[in-house]
Each structure stands twice: as C-alpha cells, then as structure tokens.
C-alpha cells in the first residue's frame, strides 16, 4: 500500500540549533513534494516545493532535499527560533494526474524550539 511517513511525531531542540525533519514514502513516484507548516487550529501554510528532478531547494533558513532513490525528503531549519515551533507536514503529489492532483499528507512532526 502507499504510505507517507514522518518518522518523528515530536522533535525538541534548543534555539540556534538546526532542526532536521524526515519524510519517507513508499509505493509512490511523486512528481513533487511539498512542506507545510501548521499551527494549532489553523490551516497548513505552504513553505517549499521540490520537484523530482531537483536535489535541493532553499528559502531563507529553510532547506529541503529530495532523494528519489531513497524515497526520502529531509527538511532543515537552520538557526532555529522559538517562533519556528509548529507542526511541519510533508505532502506529495503522485506522478499520475499532475495538474491539480490531490496532495497526500503525512501526519506531521511537531517541532518545539526552546530558548
């Protein structure tokens, strides 16, 4: 069966450190993979998208990698701050039916950054 898994439900780190979140998937060949941030009681907020032919993408303190051989994406937040505390969701779009295709979400990793 198709699965998308975010290995840690919770991750606690100290301010200033780099947070690394993992997303693994099985039985998909995604056209692209996305990362979202979700705060309690709010909708997901889009952060980054990485395509199957891209290895790495950066945006400010965020970096995403995508390894289609390992079927894994890593999401890094450098110089983390307490304001980065939230749940981070991995989502992928299956290769078939690219335009407007439904995103499949992982359960998320809740990051807590302590000062």
């Amino acid at each position, binding site marked *: 069966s198709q699965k998308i898994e975010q290995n840690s439900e919770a991750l606690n780190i100290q301010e200033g450190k780099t947070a690394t979140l993992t997303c693994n998937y099985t039985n998909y060949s995604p056209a692209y993979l996305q990362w*979202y941030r979700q705060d309690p009681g709010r909708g997901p*907020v889009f952060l980054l998208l990485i395509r199957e032919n891209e290895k790495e993408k950066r945006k400010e303190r965020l970096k995403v990698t995508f390894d289609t051989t390992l079927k894994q994406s890593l999401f890094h937040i450098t110089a983390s701050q307490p304001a980065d505390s939230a749940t981070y969701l991995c989502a992928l779009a299956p290769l078939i*039916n690219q*335009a*407007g*295709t439904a995103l499949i*979400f992982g359960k998320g990793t809740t990051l807590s950054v302590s000062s």
Partner: protein
Amino acid sequence: EPEVTQTPSHQVTQMGQEVILRCVPISNHLYFYWYRQILGQKVEFLVSFYNNEISEKSEIFDDQFSVERPDGSNFTLKIRSTKLEDSAMYFCASTRTGGYGYTFGSGTRLTVV
C-alpha cells in the same frame, strides 16, 4: 497577500442535519480542494474541483457530500445528513495549477452533536 476565506469558522449541528461550508478561493486560482482533519490526525483529501466539475475524489467523499461553485467566487461543501464522525476541521484550498503550493483557508471546525 491573497487569502482563502472560509465561513463559518465554527459550526455546531445536530446529527442528521445538512450543513454547508463556504469558501472563497484566491481569484486567479484554477484548482479548488476540500480537505478535512479529525482532531489529532492527518490532513485528508476529500475532493478536487476544476473547470466546474469534480476532477478527483477520495473514498471519504461519498454520496453524503457534494461540492458546488455557484458563482465566480464561492466554493461550497455540503454534507447532506451529518454523522458524529463528520466532526472535524474542514479546510478549503486553492492553487494556480499543478506544481505550485496550495493556499489553505483557516478552516471551519464542524462539531456534530
């Protein structure tokens, strides 16, 4: 920054009643979606809508559910006869086209009693 607007933010309804959740997607977006999130669980896809018709739907989206785009701006989700297990946050989202991030609304918290 353009937003997806959802109303109401919270709705309480009795089991068996019909509810309509409303959304105003971003104006130049072409694809519209409904997702739901049961408390403590993952965001689940319900339905996608493009060019005035459903393009994809999940197993959750059974005959009790319907979507409509009654005019050029609104996008609605109707649940005909609500069940207790329909209690969840319902999110509307839109995107310009494939290969772009989705913009989600803040959600409607539906409580069925």
